[in-house]
C-alpha cells in the first residue's frame, strides 16, 4: 500500500463549491479559483465523498466506498484511477492532501 493511499484528503471548502448535476457527471464552480470544471461519472462521486468528509478521507477508503456504488463506470484499477483523480483535483484546487 502506498503512502498516497494512506494520506488523508479533503475537498476545497464545501461552501466555495457550487454544483449542478443532470445525470452524466457534474459541473462544479470553485469560488476559490473562479474556475468551472466538468467532472465525469467517476470523478464526480469522488469529490462528493471528499466534501462529505471535511476531516479527511484516505484514498483507500474512497476506493472502498466507491466500490460499493453500482452506478460507477467500470474501471480496471480503481485505486490508481482514484489516485489520479485526487492528484488532478489537487492541481485544480478542488482538493488537497491534509498535513499529517
Amino acid at each position, binding site marked *: 500500500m502506498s503512502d498516497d493511499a494512506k494520506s488523508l484528503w479533503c475537498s476545497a471548502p464545501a461552501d466555495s463549491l*457550487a454544483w*449542478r*448535476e*443532470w*445525470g*452524466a*457527471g*457534474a*459541473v462544479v*464552480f470553485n*469560488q476559490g479559483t*473562479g474556475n*468551472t470544471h*466538468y467532472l465525469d461519472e467517476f470523478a464526480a462521486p469522488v469529490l462528493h465523498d471528499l466534501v462529505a468528509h471535511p476531516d479527511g478521507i484516505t484514498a483507500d477508503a474512497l476506493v472502498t466506498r466507491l466500490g460499493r456504488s453500482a452506478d460507477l463506470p467500470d474501471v480496471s484499477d480503481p485505486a490508481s484511477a482514484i489516485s489520479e483523480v485526487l492528484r488532478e483535483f489537487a492541481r485544480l484546487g478542488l482538493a488537497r492532501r491534509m498535513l499529517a
Partner: protein
Amino acid sequence: MIVADLSRTELARRLAGPGLRLRTGPLVARIQSPLPAVADGIALHYAQYPTTTDGEFADFWVRVARPRSLRRWFKSQACLFVDGRSPFAPLPLDQAFPMLEWGLNWCVSAYCHQYLIIHAAVLERSGRALILPAPPGSGKSTLAAALVHRGWRLLSDELTLIDPGSCRVVPLPRPVSLKNGSIDAIRAFAPSAKIGIPVRDTVKGTVAHMRVPSECMRDADNTAVPCWIVFPRYRAGSHLQLAAVPRERGFMRVAEQAFNYSLHGRRGFEVLAQVLDRCTCHSLEYEDLDAAVAAIAALDR
C-alpha cells in the same frame, strides 16, 4: 419615431451632426458618421428601428469617420471611435458599415455586463428560445438567417443576452452578418431576403448584412425562455447529424462561448445552470439548410 420616418437628408444630418440615437433591444447607441456608406447601411438595415430624441441617455457613443492623420490623404480609410477613443486599427473606407456593426457588437460584449453574454445566435418561437452557440465560421448566422425565413423570430445572430434575474433571453435584433458562400446560400434559400451590397476583402472575407424582416420587429421587446441549445457546425459534404449532448457537456460548451461568464463569478454559474435546467442540448452538423431547418423544427414538437 422610427428611422424610416426620417428623410434621407435628415438621417444624414443627424449622423453627421449630433448623432442618431438608435434603439436596438434594450440598448441605445448614439451613432455619428459623415460617411455615405454608413447612412446607406442604416437606411437599409435599421429602417424599422426606434430612434430616440437628442439628449436622451445612450449606452454607447460610436463614431465612424475618416482618420484625422495624414493617412486620410493617400489612403481611403475609416476609423471606429467608441466614446471618443479608437480601439481598433482603421479599415478601408468601403468597410465602414461592417465596421459599425462590429463596433456595436464589441460595445455590447465589452460593456453590457448586466447580462450574461453568450457568443450565440438566438431565435424565438412561441415564447421559447433556440440558442445556437458556436465559434466564428460555424455557420450559426447562416442558420439563423434561414430560420428567420421559416417562421422564427430573430433575437440576435451574434450575442445572446441572458438576464440574470429572470434567466430569460433579452432580444437584440440587428442585421445578420453573412460571409462568403453563405451570402448566395441565403439568397437561394430565401429569395425575399433583403441583403446589402457585399463588401469584399474584409478580415472575414466577403461580408454582407441581411436586414431583419419586419415581422421580427413586431414583438421586438418580448423576452423568451431558453428551451433548446443547438451547437451548429457547417461542414461541406456532410449529411445532417443531430445528436443529443449531455447537459453537463453542454454547459461547458456554452460557458466557453460566453464573453463574460468568468466576470459574473458564482452568479454566472448559477444563471447558466438555470438556463441549462430549462434546455435540451444537441449538436447539429449540416450542409443543407432545408434539412437543418427541418431538424430544428422537429425539436419543437
